[in-house]
């Protein structure tokens, strides 16, 4: 099976064009593809659509928020488009308010289900999440079995940036604990999936077929994260500091 391992993150992101849509995995630090994001920041692509859980992060250097600060993001699809408290109001929110950036906000379950629909060839689906709220105001609804549902459409992307623990050379992946989160679904939903690996990249046959979380058929490029300072690692102590 094809060897998908590249040696640098810069190679991995080199062909990403302006205007690309990119899913960015992670839920908090676990599973966040910091090294791919850092490479994309160096690479320069602009006019990007970012699909990620939180749109409202602008403090990290290797986060989608930094792309927002650099004015390289035109749209963000997310489950958080404002910080929890008005006092934490940040640039992302200001750009959204001024219309310089479009933030499409949706329930987290709808976000991931729309990705899954894109992955699974589902044309649209009905969910109860957001029924009766302002998010459903201009959406089609339907009563099924006595309950109201909102119609939601697939959310595909050109690229997925994800982080996993272990890979083989074909890109079969294993995640560690809550590093999993959105990452397996993004790998299935995007046309081209880029993965940064924390642990080992093993030879073909080195991973138990029963314990592959994301099969390599969904994965296109794999890069091992180098040790710090070259490689980016977030440790709990960084967050507590």
């Amino acid at each position, binding site marked *: 099976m094809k060897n998908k391992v590249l040696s640098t993150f810069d190679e991995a992101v080199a062909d990403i064009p302006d205007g690309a849509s990119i899913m960015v995995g992670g839920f908090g630090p676990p599973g966040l593809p910091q090294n791919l994001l850092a490479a994309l920041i160096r690479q320069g692509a602009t006019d990007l659509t970012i699909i990620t859980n939180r749109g409202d992060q602008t403090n990290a250097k290797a986060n989608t928020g930094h792309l927002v600060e650099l004015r390289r993001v035109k749209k963000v699809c997310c*489950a958080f488009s404002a910080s929890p408290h008005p006092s934490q109001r940040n640039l992302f929110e200001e750009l959204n308010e001024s219309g310089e950036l479009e933030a499409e906000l949706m329930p987290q*379950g709808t976000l991931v289900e729309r990705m899954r629909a894109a992955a699974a060839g589902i044309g649209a689906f009905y*969910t109860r*999440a957001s029924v009766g709220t302002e998010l459903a105001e201009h959406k089609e609804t339907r009563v099924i079995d006595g309950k109201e549902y909102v119609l939601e459409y697939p959310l595909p992307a050109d690229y997925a940036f994800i982080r996993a623990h272990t890979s083989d050379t074909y890109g079969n992946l294993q995640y560690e604990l809550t590093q999993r989160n959105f990452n397996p679904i993004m790998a299935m939903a995007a046309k081209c999936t880029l993965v940064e690996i924390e642990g080992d990249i093993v030879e073909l046959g080195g991973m138990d077929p029963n314990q592959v979380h994301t099969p390599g058929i969904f994965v296109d490029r794999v890069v091992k994260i180098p040790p710090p300072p070259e490689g980016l690692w977030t440790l709990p102590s960084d967050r507590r500091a």
Partner: protein
Amino acid sequence: MTTTEKKRIDRQTMCNRLAMEFEDGWVANLGVGMPTLCSNYEYADKDIVFQSENGLIGYGPLAAKGEEHPNLVNAGVQYVTMKPGASILHHADSFTVIRGGYVDVTVLGAYEVAENGDFANWKTLGRKGGGIGGAMDLAVGAKRVWLALEHTTRDGHPRLLNRCKLPVTAVNVVSRVVTDLGLFDITPDGFLLREIAPGFTPEEVQELTEAKLTISPDLKEFYGA
């Protein structure tokens, strides 16, 4: 009721009061912020399985400083531990748990709650964006939606309303509310005051509430206050 000193309920006691209603074997999802305090309650012989949006099932107390696992957080991105029997799902399967009705109770925070069971917790006035996270899915998917919130805003405006003024998170879903003034059920008749903070009279609580309260014939002092 005897006239004792007025005492608003502290947040841990509020959450304890909901937590003690959890039943053995329940799967529970705790919202970020105050609801997380429900995990501090001592459940004794009751076995509660905590589930979080990011796919973690069966998490335990917060990790001790220096013993955090870098890849193990709950929905509030707190470093937690796992109980024996824990497991991990991806996000789509995690929301299958949530929307599919496998969560017995979710305790959420809120800005407002209305007597018809609507509540608002994702967007404040005058802001274009908001923070939904898993709240809209939990609100329609969990078997029970309970809220923990301060009874009034910092300015003293009531949060228990006839109808929500802020954009709602879901309609007609809340069945129980705890505030620093009491424990309420939401019934077809609206808010039912079941337990009241020490030293407060039902009239005083009504004064701080926009919606019309029904007072339980069995009204008690807030348990554990």
